């Protein structure tokens, strides 16, 4: 791992049918870093992620993995380099945690190479990193939301890819589980040098955890860079259409956005 594969989008147009969602977007994902994509609802961040993950074919432009157009590469080959956790994956009825996480080994198996001790090791490792090893024999449909989310991340980890793309992995989680998931993703970047891209809703957590933040609006990138450098009150206004104050996060020294809203405008000092 940590081969530092490179993923970039050039002049990317993405859409569903007639509806164009992302237009003329250029983005290079910094290798070995945690990139967080933020933006208001329906700004195209999930669409961009699906495009980067070759789940959606671009109408124009292309996504390049190590210099090669990703949509023209054998999908199996891509799957050994790039793992994706989509927004709403489906767990088959009564499937056990081990079985589900084991499905992440799919791209490493084939006609003649079925299950090996190497696969067992990868599954155990993935379970251990997500702190779900003690759930190994439990059915997935009996788990809590936070446990289930960690198990799905373990499934993506078992794929053992250098690049990992996650679409809102913290949705439906309590704040403590959100932090847990983001800590885990940070570990992956720091300890194994993976490149992780994640779509997030919470701007403050995004600012705290991102090495590189990408702020999107109406299918284009408004700004990108280190959160301390690029997140300003003006950017928050542009991207979310909301006035705010930015203070320094007392824990991480990163920007912390304090929304203002209509009822508190007067109380602010000029």
């Amino acid at each position, binding site marked *: 791992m940590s081969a530092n594969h490179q993923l970039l989008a050039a002049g990317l147009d993405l859409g569903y049918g007639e509806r164009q969602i992302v237009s003329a977007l250029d983005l290079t994902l910094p290798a070995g870093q945690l990139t967080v994509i933020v933006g208001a609802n329906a700004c195209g961040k999930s669409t961009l992620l699906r495009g980067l993950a070759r789940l959606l074919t671009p109408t124009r432009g292309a996504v390049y993995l190590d210099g090669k157009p990703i949509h023209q590469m054998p*999908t199996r080959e891509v*799957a*050994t380099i790039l*793992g994706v956790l989509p927004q709403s*994956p489906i767990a088959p*009825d009564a499937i056990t945690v081990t079985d589900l996480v084991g499905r992440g080994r799919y*791209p490493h198996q084939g*006609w003649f190479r079925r299950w090996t001790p190497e696969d067992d090791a990868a599954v155990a490792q993935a379970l251990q990193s997500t702190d779900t090893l003690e759930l*190994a*024999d439990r059915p997935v449909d009996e788990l809590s939301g936070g446990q289930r989310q960690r198990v799905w991340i373990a499934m993506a980890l078992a794929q053992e890819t250098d690049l990992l793309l996650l679409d809102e992995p913290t949705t439906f989680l309590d704040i403590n589980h959100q932090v847990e998931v983001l800590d885990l993703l940070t570990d992956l970047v720091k300890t194994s040098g993976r490149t992780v891209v994640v779509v997030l809703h919470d701007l403050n957590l995004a600012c705290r955890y991102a090495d590189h933040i990408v702020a999107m609006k109406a299918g284009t990138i408004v700004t990108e860079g280190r959160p301390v450098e690029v997140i300003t009150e003006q950017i928050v206004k542009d991207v979310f259409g909301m006035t705010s104050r930015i203070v320094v996060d007392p824990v991480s020294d990163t920007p912390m956005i304090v929304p203002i809203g209509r009822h508190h405008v007067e109380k602010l000092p000029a």
Partner: protein
Amino acid sequence: MTTALDITRVVQTRTRSADRRRNVTLALLVALLLVFALALYLGDYPVPVEGVIRSLLSPFTGLTDRGVDFIVLQVRLPRAILAVLSGASFALAGIIFQTLLRNPLASPDIIGIAHGASASAVFCIIILGWSGTAVSFGAFGGAVITALAIYLLAWRNGVTAYRVVLIGIGMAAMLAAVISYLFTRARLTEVQQAMAWLVGSLNASRPGDSIVLGGALLVLIPAMIALLRGLDAMELGDDTARSLGAKVEFTRLGLMLVAVGFAAFATAAVGPVGFVAFVSGPLARTMLNGAGRGFPQAALVGALVMLASDLIAQHLLPNTQLPVGVVTGAFGALFLLWLLMASGRSGRVN
């Protein structure tokens, strides 16, 4: 080292699943063998157990007894074999559709494919005046054309499970209307013949039926096994499957073709015997309780249900042979009620 211990835990879970799969499979095989033996033994013409065994071994031992051999080898054995083959085919068709479409209601006898076979067969009997093997060909064509129509109508930049189920149910209703219309134009004897076909029966089975169906299975089962690996990924949703490197559209189309093949050949052989396709998969999965997808086990359940239902159909009423579809229908209705009650408790149908 903690890692060594961790792997044990994963291996243990997998081994436990494998054990359960093996035990369920063995239990089903034993049950199937018992019922198969019973099917060779039971009948209007009493043959003692030794007689059945001698008869079965007669091709090797040369110890023949023309009368008994005819009953055992020419009447009971082909019928039992056809029941096993057709039951397994219906079951596999059902579990493929149910898994692909993620819906226990999505078996071919619910989403219109059996109706396509039926409408075509009734058309052949009433309008064209066909009978016997010709009707089987008609039913086969009807099933394939209906499946194709459902797939094309559901196509919109790919096929979603939801659209296939809805269009299939619509198609089923339409074809049921066609059948009703054909009945209004028919003479009583034709209606009787068509009705007998519609209920599905092994009473009129010919030895050739098993050979055709068996040949089809020799092609369809390997094709299915080749495609099943992709289903490992596809069970997690299309996006996850694609990101794992599975060829989603190819696998889905391939498996649907195979499933239509199973349904069409079985229907052509024994008629649209209801509910076998519908009940086998969920029953097998209930037995496995998460220890696998249950395709081989579903095939065994299907064979068992068909064989046992046919035995009941033959011997329940003295002097009357019921069509097997009457028994599977009653059994299936009970199962449907159970499924609805179970899903009502857990608050979901899936």
